[in-house]
């Protein structure tokens, strides 16, 4: 196993791109149906611009010290390390459940109605523990295969929907300030990748800021493309069911050949697998390097317990899947804590000083 080999930052960001793009696969758009496509585009742009701001503290730490955030804390202020570990452990558990819940819900509603969501979550978590135990490097290599598959899947989903395109409505700029705020908040969800980047960038080499920018731009392009097809190929029908991307895959067809929702299922499963595995890696890293597998298994058990609670207790589920809570938590994890550490911890952001 190559756990100590540094890998290209490009690959980490490619994996993060997949993570951010997969968010849209599991979203049930609670956007205003009367808002047009152009309005959604503005929301996407604003949302991703805000996401970029989430990246800044991690990027500053990475560029100036060469370390990721947990390593820096561990080296510079070992006393603070347990508190940081507890906070980020909670964050990653929360975020893992945030993605796991809609996935199991979608799975049980659209594919296997009689299957228990807990069973689905358990099997997925077992697979994720295996992947997380192999390390970030290996998961990012898996990301290359997933990227190719995601490209094919998206071409199939969108290409198959071209015949259903109808531009009767949607190219309008309707929307209020409140809708803009809600829409932008909705598109800030992929900002969680900034926290992953902050945690795992220490394994990488050849990092450039433009890689982050490109990742966010490509995420925006993917969002825009999906929104385009949802608006013009599905129209009002999109809002009749949950998980609009699933509906898009259901509509996609090439002549008599349909069934592209099977590709959607595969893509979503692999994406959630990737995200949860990365979270488990981050958890392992936040807690410490020694006995990583033990920590990963413990956190997977916690995620499973929380997921089971959410399945049976509606208030828990509502709290865990609330986009605003998620964005708020991400803001604290990606911006507030690192900035507070940098400002109040008076850390010398000098590579040589830290290295010495």
């Amino acid at each position, binding site marked *: *196993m*190559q756990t100590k*080999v540094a*890998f*290209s930052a490009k*690959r980490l960001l490619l994996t993060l791109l997949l993570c951010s793009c997969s968010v849209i696969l599991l979203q049930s758009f609670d956007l205003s149906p009367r808002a047009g496509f152009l309005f959604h585009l503005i929301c996407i742009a604003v949302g991703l611009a805000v996401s970029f701001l989430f990246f800044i503290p991690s990027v500053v730490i990475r560029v100036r010290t060469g370390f990721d955030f947990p390593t820096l804390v561990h080296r510079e202020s070992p006393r603070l390390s347990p508190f940081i570990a507890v906070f980020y452990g909670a964050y990653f558990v929360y975020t893992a459940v945030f993605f796991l819940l809609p996935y199991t819900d979608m*799975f049980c509603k659209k*594919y*296997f109605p009689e299957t228990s969501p807990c069973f*689905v979550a358990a*099997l*997925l978590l077992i*697979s994720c523990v*295996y*992947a997380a135990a*192999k*390390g970030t*490097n*290996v*998961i990012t*290599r*898996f990301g*290359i*295969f997933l990227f190719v598959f995601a490209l094919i899947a998206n071409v199939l989903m969108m290409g198959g929907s071209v015949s259903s395109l109808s531009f009767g409505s949607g190219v309008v700029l309707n929307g209020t300030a409140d809708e803009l705020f809600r829409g932008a908040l909705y598109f800030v969800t992929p900002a969680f990748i900034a926290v992953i980047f902050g945690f795992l960038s220490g394994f990488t080499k050849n990092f450039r800021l433009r890689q982050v920018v490109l990742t966010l731009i490509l995420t925006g392009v993917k969002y825009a493309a999906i929104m385009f097809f949802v608006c013009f190929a599905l129209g009002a029908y999109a809002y009749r069911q949950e998980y609009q991307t699933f509906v898009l895959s259901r509509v996609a067809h090439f002549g*008599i*050949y349909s*069934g592209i929702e*099977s590709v959607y*299922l*595969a893509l979503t*499963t*692999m994406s959630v*697998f990737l995200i949860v595995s990365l979270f488990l890696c981050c958890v392992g890293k936040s807690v410490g390097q020694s006995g990583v597998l033990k920590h990963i298994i413990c956190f997977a058990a916690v995620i499973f317990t929380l997921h089971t609670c959410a399945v049976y207790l509606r208030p828990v589920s509502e709290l865990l899947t609330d986009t605003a809570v998620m964005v708020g938590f991400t803001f604290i994890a990606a911006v507030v804590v690192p900035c507070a550490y940098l400002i109040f911890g008076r850390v010398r952001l000098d590579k040589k000083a830290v290295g010495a």
Partner: protein
Amino acid sequence: MITVCIIYPFPLNIQEKCSYSNIGDFMNDSLKELLSELKQTFADSADLTVRELSLRSDTGLEAAVVTMEGMCDKEQLGQTVLTPLLSFDFGRDSGEEAADAVLHSVLASSDIIEFSDEQQLISFITSGFAALVIDGCARGFAIGVQGFAFRSVSEPESEVVQRGSREGFTEPLRVNMSMLRRRIKSPDLVFEQMTVGSDSQTQLMLCYLQNKASPALLDTLRKRLSECDLETVLASGYLSDYLEDPGTSRLFSGVGISERPDTVCGKLTEGRIAVIVDGTPAVITIPHLFVEEFQGVDDYSNRTYYAAFIRVLKYIAFFASVFLPGLYTALAQFHPEYFPTWILIQTSEALSKTPLPVTLEVLMMTFVYEVMKEAGLRIPKSLGHAVSIVGALVIGESAVNAGIISASTLMVVATAAICSYVTSALYPPIMTLRFVFIIAGGLLGLWGIVLVTAVVIISMCAKTSLGVPYMSSLAPFSLRSMRDVFIRAGWKRLSDRTINVRNFPETEVR
């Protein structure tokens, strides 16, 4: 099969110390004691041949020629050793003086090695040398008169090519070495000898190009081979486990095997190391990567577009052989709506007439196929035809007609089986994964297949071969090496920038 008898042209240079119990330094023993000790060591084995000689001398010098039955060329032994020894007059020479005379004036062989202890003596005679020991002399002589029957050089059945050399490795180590040397005449080609197996004392050669192979890789390889604690090594496959990187999955092999000298030469030029084991035609090449399984000698002889087509075909066949039965099971069991309508009608009607659920049916057919394949391999050739008829007619057509299995299941299993032979080196993982995917598809549908696929990809990505990522070229992705993965670029581009295996990204040992 032609068998010929040849005389080894190369001197064996036994450097390793062997360790046998109850063997001592024979310099202090008399000839009689030595011979009796030797017989005791071999427990009076029938193939230990001791020819005791009374040499022509005034002092009554005694000597013995020790050989192993069937390992020496008797005619050469007579001409170069026995006749000169018996006809030479040693006069009043002592044992040591006689030994000098034997070395410089008596023996007609060009291949004589001195030795001084019993362990070396055993090594020499078991390697086909004739050992000459003289009473009262602390030295002995190993005379190269090897000659035993072995299979001649022929085309390997498992790696048949359309255009290219028809030579394949054979069992004797030295013949295999000569085949490589004939192809790479550069002095950079180095053969490094080692011995493995505490009982079998099997000789092997590390073969590499010193200007290409990484010294670090070589050190790692030497270390792993020296850690091999097997008593007997009869084939190169015995060493595979010791050469794999620790802690990595063993589903796919991180050790390449080839019976073709041209293939091995090609790999040597890319910085790989070959391990030639005496007594087996299968030569190990390491590091070994996943993409290599899809590269064939013919690719480099054919037109580039055709080579690219064959490569893509191989990848498709690999995926079909692994996924097809599992996907069919998953779709038929959980998602019939994903079948196109016309296939759905046919499959549904066919499966409704059979007694078993589709998962069991596919599992059973795959199992029956594996049994037939194994029987086909082991059965005498004269009966092979009968097995084919039984397989095709009885298990195939009759079972379908009797309604025991459906035609669609049979077709899927057969297609997967044929596809698996396109990349025959990958057959063990293909077979294993096929069963896993059938079970996953039958229990969990498409989702199960996706989940298992993710785990398998992770395991493949985590695998390394001598520190080089097993999935190199693909993951970690290397654009430079892509010209010899899915397509094969023209020779002008390939020869300009041959990619050394140590230059793959994220290689741990460079």
